[in-house]
């Protein structure tokens, strides 16, 4: 799967907007994931509900930073996320279905924050981009 020139342009334009509030976007994406799909909480047993917001913000920032790396190296997402790919395969071992759930929650978050920019074309580009990121992160699973 590879992104068209138009899709890459759209992704980078959206990333410029995301970058100005990436921690909040990351926090909200994770908050949505854990609220809407509570089974995802099984991967965060160490999260304490009282300081949930701070933990979500910290972890969300990490997730968005990685997505940003992928966007900025869109010609070589495999290379950009190589370390994370290994981490997910050998240490984190997050079941692949969860990548779809997280991706969906990111799209929902983008829709709420950037209603005018989240056009049908942007929706398609980001859905495809996150699908690519997800497949890179699971490519060493077996």
């Amino acid at each position, binding site marked *: 799967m590879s992104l068209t020139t138009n899709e890459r342009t759209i992704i980078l334009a959206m990333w410029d907007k995301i970058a100005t509030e990436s921690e909040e976007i990351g926090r*909200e994406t994770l908050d*949505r994931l854990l609220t*809407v799909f509570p089974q995802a909480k099984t991967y965060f047993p160490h999260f304490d509900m009282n300081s949930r917001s701070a933990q979500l913000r910290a972890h969300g920032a990490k997730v968005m930073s990685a997505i940003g790396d992928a966007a900025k190296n869109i010609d070589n997402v495999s290379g950009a996320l190589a370390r994370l790919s290994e981490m997910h395969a050998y240490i984190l071992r997050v079941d692949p279905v969860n990548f779809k759930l997280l991706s969906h929650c990111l799209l*929902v978050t983008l829709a*709420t924050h950037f*209603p005018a920019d989240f056009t*049908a074309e942007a*929706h398609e580009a980001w*859905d495809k981009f996150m699908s690519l990121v997800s497949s890179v992160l699971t490519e060493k699973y077996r």
Partner: protein
Amino acid sequence: MVHLTAEEKALVTGLWGKVKVDEFGGEALGRLLVVYPWTQRFFDSFGDLSSADAVMGNPKVKAHGAKVLQSMGDGIKNLDNLKGTFSKLSELHCDKLHVDPENFRLLGNVLVCVLARHFGKDFTPAAQAAFQKVVVGVANALAAKYH
């Protein structure tokens, strides 16, 4: 069976009251066809679907999207009996339209994105959770008569 708490039902009916069914329906169906182009396989007779702009502006897409969302509205009024509400439509989608039920799940998630886009901050994580239960319930009800 879909199990919504009283709070979730309130969130759903509250937001649904502000939904412009025809407009959001056209947008949801259009986005389905743009984001997942293989879904266009069911709409050969709809004319020009050659670009995102063509799809989103296509009058048949808008009209059909409106119909689909009106139907979803019927579901929201009958959350305790989704299987009954969608029984005939389920048979239609299986026997006449031959639609893979996976498409109902795709459309459900696209609809959630459309609601998010229009409601912004009001589409809280709790509201999203409630609507995800609804769209899953509707998708399952539409698949219930498949054989």
